[in-house]
């Protein structure tokens, strides 16, 4: 439950974003995020909230590693 997963923002409506990882889309809230984010940005999503912004390169790297370590159910 403590995992944060890097996801790409597909759309944003107010504080709600739709973000994607591995073709799976999820809604998340950006109300905890200090900085502005928009479509195409990567964020770490934890428990339905974006908690930190991430550069694309690092996000991809982190995702690759996470897929090796974690079971898919851990990453939801």
């Amino acid at each position: 439950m403590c995992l944060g997963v890097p996801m790409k923002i597909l759309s944003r409506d107010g504080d709600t974003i739709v973000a994607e990882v591995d073709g799976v889309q999820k809604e998340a809230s950006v109300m905890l995020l200090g900085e502005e984010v928009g479509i195409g940005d990567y964020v770490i999503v934890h428990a339905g909230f974006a908690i930190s912004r991430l550069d694309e390169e690092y996000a991809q790297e982190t995702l690759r590693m996470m897929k090796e370590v974690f079971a898919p159910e851990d990453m939801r």
Partner: protein
Amino acid sequence: MKFQDEFRDRELVKNMAANIRRMAERLTKPVNFMEVCGTHTMAIYQFGIRSLLPENVRLISGPGCPVCVTPVGYVDRAVACTADARNIVATFGDMLRVPGSRSSLMEERAKGADVRIVYSPLDAVALANANPERRVIFLGIGFETTAPTIAASILEATKLGLSNYYVLASHKTMPVPMEILTADPDLALSGYLCPAHVSTVIGANAYKPLAEKYRIPCVVTGFEPADVMQGIEMLLAQVLAGESRVEIQYSRAVSWEGNPKAQTIMERVFVPCDASWRGLGLLPGSGLAIKPELARFDAERALAIDPGEEQENPACRCGEVLKGKLSPFDCPLFATACTPESPVGACMVSSEGTCAAAYKYGR
């Protein structure tokens, strides 16, 4: 387990390992570094990081899994909440199989209790909104990464004017247990790999008092193998130089100040309180309680919960595992009576738990 051969940064990590070995030759006594993040624990086991380190550089797993440090009495209170048919208990999935004194949420659900798994505290709020005749009780556990999300759910419930949303709060905060463990002479800790995601919220400044007061090096580390190895290198460099500073290895996600917005939302809803940790006992100022003015959301205060008498399984050694005093392999129940399919203790339940990581990758 050997370091994974197929790993893409094999050369980089191997060079780091060689460097760590060279540095370790200059140590006058062995060093114990502790990681206090379940994600680190998993990565360390999965990638066989220990097999890359010389004998005098040891890694110890600490209390970094939120499910694991939640005491048995809390599970009992959650189980007690399921007894009333008006209640829906909403929780993150890994709480389900944690054994309480007499039962678990999984067992109660099998008997017909309404226990729902949610991925976000906002899903629990939506559940309350959709079921006005029921009471939705969300199990609020987790560290500083999760606490702001639960604070946000309470603010959202206020905004929606809900009177049937409750949080059974047992949030924990990180720096306090680290202080207790640092002061423990048995552990003789020489440095911390500080948690990654907790630090995105609280910021690396939060570890400065610890580093200064106890003269212990702290490095905020990411959780890729190269991150962990670099974190170890940075800790070793400090030890060899006789320094005790806070450093950020994981600068791509962690800053010194953390996330002020998340901190503000947390402060609007919670106040620090004493909290009971599995294995560590009651630690002053190590938890977060819902503020008195928001007491109507506090399941503990708003609802009558009778958890019954608390009983810890005497055979389970989770307490010692969480303090880093016992390796899972030395628990007599490990991989025999206690497995991820039928966990005896909390450390075997969540995949971030030390025993679960050791079971999956360490054997």
